[in-house]
């Protein structure tokens, strides 16, 4: 066997996601409905973390790890995938819908949200509850990495006025407790290619740039972080048979803004926040309501978690907020995000 004559650029690889309707059946194998594999606009596809369980301790009777001592299990592992790139409409709808469990824009989580469980018996799912993932290889022959039964567990967005004109970027983390679908998958077809549907911070109006009730902030940069983790239980020959979103669902945001008449009171308000009360809403939008077609987000109630000076060409202010609910029995949204 001779050495291979072709090497590849990392940029030739693609990261694809699709809605998956039945637990255990990868989207590429589903026929009715046939869900599109959508290419995310990622900077780098990264690498899947297979998290195999290995035993590398040599057994008693020898000072050497013998081949027979080596242990490996793949059924009891939670695989993780992380990507980051540019936020575009098609992929973002899948990610936001999956992590919030909401089928329509604006994607939101209610203050009284409970747990959500899917099992190996879950079929005919709708609304992007399960995702399939493919690492599409540049090597064209049976080299795509395919994973099924995936959940988006963390999603963050960021933008910087001095980077790419404030274009909104994203990072996402996915997990699955099921065995890999195929690590030598045949060449996968991209159904929906990357589009140019970019979002920009510049779309937000001054009086709709609000940080914990302080409006008309002049932003330099922001990040929005959403988490909704999954616990996998019930080990079977095909991996874990049950997945439940049970941890805290949280939304936090960090901002760097100009220190001015509108933001200077933040120090006092951060210090004087009242236990048990919201400090005000946090909104980034072109209007007061996150709506379809625009990247906007809103925490109806939020508290300041940090305020500090940030030296730059101008005196800037770092402000961090966390969304707070309206009560355990309230259906009022904890947070809303639109795209």
């Amino acid at each position, binding site marked *: 066997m001779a050495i291979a004559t072709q090497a590849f650029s990392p940029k030739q690889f693609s990261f694809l996601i699709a809605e998956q309707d039945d637990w255990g059946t990868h989207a590429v194998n589903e026929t009715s409905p046939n869900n599109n594999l959508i290419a995310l606009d990622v900077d780098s596809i990264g690498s899947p973390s297979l998290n195999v369980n290995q035993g590398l301790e040599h057994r008693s009777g020898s000072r050497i790890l013998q081949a027979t001592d080596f242990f490996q299990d793949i059924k009891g592992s939670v695989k993780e995938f992380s990507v980051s790139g540019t936020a575009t409409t098609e992929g973002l709808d899948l990610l936001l819908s999956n992590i919030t469990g909401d089928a329509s824009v604006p994607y939101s989580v209610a203050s009284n949200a409970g747990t959500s469980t899917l099992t190996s018996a879950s079929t005919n799912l709708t609304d992007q509850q399960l995702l399939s993932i493919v690492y599409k290889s540049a090597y064209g022959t049976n080299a795509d990495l395919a994973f099924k039964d995936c959940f988006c567990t963390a999603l963050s967005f960021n933008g910087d006025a001095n980077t790419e004109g404030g274009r909104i970027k994203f990072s996402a983390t996915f997990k699955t407790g099921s065995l890999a679908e195929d690590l030598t998958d045949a060449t996968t077809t991209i159904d929906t290619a990357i589009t140019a549907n970019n979002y920009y911070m510049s779309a937000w109006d001054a009086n709709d740039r609000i940080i914990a009730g302080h409006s008309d902030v002049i932003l330099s940069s922001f990040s929005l972080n959403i988490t909704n983790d999954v616990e996998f239980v019930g080990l079977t020959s095909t991996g874990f048979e049950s997945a439940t979103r049970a941890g805290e669902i949280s939304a936090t945001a960090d901002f760097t803004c100009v220190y001015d008449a509108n933001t200077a009171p933040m120090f006092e308000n951060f210090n004087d926040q009242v236990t048990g*009360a919201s400090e005000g809403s946090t909104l980034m939008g072109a209007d007061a309501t996150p709506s379809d077609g625009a990247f906007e987000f809103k925490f109806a109630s939020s508290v300041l978690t940090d305020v500090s000076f940030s030296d730059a060409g101008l005196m800037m202010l770092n402000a961090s907020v966390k969304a707070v609910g309206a009560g355990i029995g309230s259906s009022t949204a904890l947070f809303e995000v639109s795209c």
Partner: protein
Amino acid sequence: MKIKLIKEPIRDALGICFNKGAYDPELIKQLNDGEVVEVEMIPKKAEKYVKEVKPKKSKKKDNE
């Protein structure tokens, strides 16, 4: 304490809270409609919008 609006309407989008708990849009609507509302506190950022309505002292008549 009781408060009422003194200036322009409070924007719903600001999410200003006058009571413990989360934002109450109905309370803001009542204030913007000109009603006197019972609240627990006036947050700093709301001082430019509302003022406390203190109970009127009853005047004693001279011949009493």
